Structure formats: C-alpha cells, structure tokens
C-alpha cells in the first residue's frame, strides 16, 4: 500500500519558558547564560529542609496563556510531584501539575491550504524546568549546571489534531506568536525557551482508531521538527508495510544523521507516581482575578489583522504575514507612524525582510533594527531619494550594521540620480550601444524598452530614478 494511503496523526506538547524575573519556586534570577550555578540557591538545588513558594507571576502568565488560547481556567488547581531520577533534576522529582491543570479545553486556529483549521488544546499546566548537563570531550564525566533548574515553564498539550508537518509548523508558529503578543515568553527557540515533544503515529486513511505512537522529546527548531516528523512517519509506514508493529517508545531525533533512535527500552515503561506536593498549597482563583487578567490582555493577532485590513487597507496576504509575528507587527506599526505608507512598509517586510531572514536562517525576533529605520527607509523611497532596488540593499545593510538609512545611503553613495541632465546622458549612451533594441522598439516590440531601462539601471548601479528613465527613453525613442 503506497504512502499516500496513510494518514499521519501528530500531537504536540509545547514547553515554553515564561519570562518572569525569578524562578517558579525561589527568588533566583531566570536570566539566560550566567556563569554555571550562579542563579541558584538552596531551594532550586534541593537542599534538605528548604521549601518552595510559588511565584505569583507564573500563575498570572499561565492564566494569560490559557485565556489567549480560548482555554477554560481552573478555579481550583494544585501542584504535583512527578518522580524520576535524572542528574539534571536535583530533587529527583519535578514539581508539575497532574490532574488539575490551571487551564484546559482550549483551541487555536491555524491557516492551512484547505482554509482555517481548529487545533484543540487539552490543557496548559505550570511546571519547573530542569538543569543542564554538560559533557566534556575528555571523558572526565558530566558537569551539572542548575541555573535553569526551577525556571518556570508552561506545557501546552494539544489533542492529536495535526495531520502534516505543515500543520505542525503553522500551529507552533501560531502558539509562538500568541505568547509573544501577550508577552509571557520571549519564545527564543535558539535559546531553548520554546521546545516541543512530538507524538507521531500513522494509520490507514479512513481508520477510526489511532495507531501506536512514538514520542520525540525536546525538539527546538522548526526545521528539525519538520524533518523528524517526515522521517518518523515514513519509518512507521515502512514497518507496517513490512508486516511489523510499532512499539510505543521515546525516540531521540539526531539532526546530523537525520534519523530517530530508540532511547529507553520498553521495560522501563514510565511510571512517574504523581502525587500532590505536600510542600505547596492549593491555587484557588476567583472570578474577579480571572476577569482582571482577561481585561489586561493586549491586542491579539486576530484583532490586529482585522484592523490592518480595515484601517490600513492591507491585502489579506499582507495582513496575515505582518501579524504572524509580534516582531513584524510592532515593527510595522512603528514604521507607519513615521512614513504613513502601510502598503510599502508591509511589502518590504513580506518580500525583502522575510527573504533576508530566511537566508540568514533567523527568526523575526532576531531583526536587529527597529520600526524607526524601516519607516525612514519607506520615506526615502516615497521621496524618490532612493529607488526600490536600492532599498533592498539598504535593508541588507540594516541587518549587518543597523543605523539610520539616510546615513547608510550617504556613506555608500546610493542616493538616487534624479538630475535630468545626468539621466539624459545615460539614456543617450545606452541607446547608442543598443541599436538593435531601438529598432525592435520602433518595430512595435514594447519589451525592448524594459531591456533598455534595465541596461541603464545596470550602468548607474541601480541609482537612476526609474520613472525618469522610462520617460526619457520614451521621449528619445519617439523622436
């Protein structure tokens, strides 16, 4: 049976580090990248006799996340211990939530090729992150850094509603964008503040039962997640096609070989022996508390999109694109406050900025300049100081060396040539050098004009004012 006869079923557990100042149960800083074990104290290092106290911001941020993803908020909730041994977990249990998560029964909508699709969220709960194990190359052992131990996380568990790697990508980007908008996390995948456990199974199309699933843990790039899903689904189909069975197990994705490997043997089937943490008390949230948080939520992407379509008359494609990330959206709003040209500003983001990010394999949060620079750039185009082809070069320069676009074009000598005499000179030179094109144009081939303008642009390194070039060529050719 060919691959096309199978359906891929994917569920995601997304872990997102909250951007609180302090850890979930102690007052240590959550800052990324400090010297080893300098953001630690007896509590997050699990010294005997210490007691955890829950950070109020963690509850607030998790409730925000729940409200922004259409979840119900539990008025009664608690923390539980998840027991397992691993050296990055100093207490030998992780404080998490088991049967009473803070948020449950939510959903987010994603754009797919077949239109909008709803992905249901089973729950969002709060828990603590583990430390980091460093392995050295000399076989001296493993080194434990507990700076990250106790950093607050929310875990968002989706229903197995995803059917392709494209849907997974759209879903992850949607969650990331929502969490950025409500400012509960910086969602930097490269720093591990957003990572996902991916559950994959396959079944024959039309089947009602799910197949046996495998889980790939701690994936932290869109690209690896996509590749891993594709590989794992194909592997499972092949096993089934050869008459084999899928074993429910945890797999490790290896980015270098592009394969999955088995991590634990079946015998060690996970048994976390969850139980309520006796060191922590009940979390009981009043209607008023939840209502206050609801009222404090900033404008979400859906609403911004609506505004861009109505107020700024963006086309749907542009509105979707600009609101796909808070970083694009904020950049856009800051830019149009300066240049008052939503169309050009959104076009530059959608075509040029996205292209450059893609080439650099970076995400919108890594854009090194602000809306001020973008706005100024659009103004320079609108005023005719630079051509649109130069604006692309300015954007590239902004990524390398962010500063005022007018400074950049001045330093690089990229100011558009709008001097009629200078342009006439170029026009005459190009006409002289291309008699065939001139003849073609006169014979009715309008395309020849485009070629001539292109040659003139090349001659001036893109600096000639394109409208003036067009006009002067036409004048000369019609003589």
């Amino acid at each position, binding site marked *: 049976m060919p691959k096309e006869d199978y359906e891929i079923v994917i569920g995601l557990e997304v872990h997102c580090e909250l951007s609180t*100042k*302090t850890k979930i149960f102690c007052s240590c800083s959550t800052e990324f990248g400090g010297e080893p074990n300098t953001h630690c104290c007896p509590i997050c290092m699990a010294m005997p006799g210490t007691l955890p106290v829950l950070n109020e911001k963690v509850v607030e941020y998790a409730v925000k996340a729940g409200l922004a993803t259409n979840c119900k908020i539990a008025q009664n909730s608690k923390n539980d211990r998840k*027991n397992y041994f691993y050296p990055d977990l100093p207490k030998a249990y992780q404080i998490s939530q088991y049967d009473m998560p803070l948020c449950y029964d939510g959903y987010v909508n994603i754009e797919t090729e077949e239109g909008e699709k709803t992905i249901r969220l089973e729950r969002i709960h709060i828990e603590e992150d583990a430390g980091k194990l460093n392995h050295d190359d000399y076989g001296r052992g493993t080194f434990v850094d507990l700076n990250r131990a106790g950093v607050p996380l929310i875990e968002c568990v989706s229903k197995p509603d995803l059917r392709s790697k494209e849907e997974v990508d759209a879903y992850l980007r949607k969650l990331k964008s929502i969490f950025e908008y409500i400012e509960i996390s910086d969602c930097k995948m490269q720093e591990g503040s957003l990572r996902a456990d991916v559950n994959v199974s396959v079944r024959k199309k039309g089947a009602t039962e799910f197949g046996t699933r495998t889980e790939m843990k701690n994936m932290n790039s869109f690209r690896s997640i996509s590749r891993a899903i594709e590989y794992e689904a194909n592997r499972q189909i092949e096993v089934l096609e050869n008459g084999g069975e899928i074993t429910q197990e945890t797999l490790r994705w290896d980015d270098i070989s592009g394969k999955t490997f088995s991590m634990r043997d079946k015998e060690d089937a996970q048994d976390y022996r969850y139980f309520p943490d006796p060191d922590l*008390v009940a979390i009981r949230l009043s209607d008023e508390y939840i209502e206050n948080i609801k009222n404090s939520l900033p404008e979400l992407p859906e609403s911004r999109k609506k505004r861009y379509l109505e107020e700024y008359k963006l086309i749907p494609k542009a509105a979707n694109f600009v609101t796909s990330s808070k970083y694009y959206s904020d950049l856009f709003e800051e830019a149009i406050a300066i240049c008052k040209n939503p169309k050009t500003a959104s076009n530059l983001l959608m075509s040029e900025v996205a292209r450059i990010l893609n080439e650099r394999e970076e995400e919108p949060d890594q854009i090194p300049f602000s809306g001020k620079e973008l706005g100024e750039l659009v103004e320079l185009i609108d005023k005719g100081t630079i051509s649109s082809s130069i604006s692309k070069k300015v954007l590239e320069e902004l990524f390398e060396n962010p500063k005022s676009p007018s400074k950049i074009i001045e330093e690089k000598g990229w100011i558009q040539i709008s001097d009629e005499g200078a342009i006439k000179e170029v026009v005459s030179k190009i006409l002289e050098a291309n008699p065939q094109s001139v003849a073609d144009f006169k014979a009715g081939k309008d395309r020849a004009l485009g070629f001539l303008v292109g040659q003139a642009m090349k001659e001036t390194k893109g600096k000639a004012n394109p409208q003036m070039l067009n006009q002067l060529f036409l004048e000369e050719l019609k003589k």
Partner: protein
Amino acid sequence: MANITREEIIHIAKLAMLNLSEQEIEHYTKDMQEILAYAEMINQIDTSDTDETIGATEQKNKFRKDEVMEFKTREDLLQNAPSQDEGMFQIPKVIN
C-alpha cells in the same frame, strides 16, 4: 479492599532504585498491605457533603512576589559536592 502484590513491591523498589533481598521483598509486601489496610479506613467516610479539598490544610494561594534575590556564594552551594569542577557538580558520565 486494598491489596498490593509482591510484583508491585518489586516494581516500586526498582523505581526507587532499591535493591531488595528476597526476605525484604516479603517483609515489605506484608508491611505495605497492613499500611494500605489501615488507610482503607478513609474510604469508609461519607464525603458526599464535603467540598473538594486540595492538600491537608485549608490554606490557599501562598504566593511570592516576582523579585530577584541573589544567593551570592556559589562555594557554599557546592561545598558538599563529592566532586566539582569549574563551578559545576562533577558526576559520572551520563550517557544520552
């Protein structure tokens, strides 16, 4: 009626990384059965009129403000580690 089997005791011991002798397995199975039988009493209580309880006390919402307080001395935190290097706990190699 609460009961626990010998196999469950072995499983729990394994999860807790305990190596039990045959004699100990027998001993703990019996002990655990007695403990569970005693705790079974709770199930006899009629709780139909009781609100959902969370934890052993009525306490709720003991929160902390999100304000950083540095614990300044890493040396103190690491002082009891059997082995350390470059400010980190050094442990036997963990194989991924």
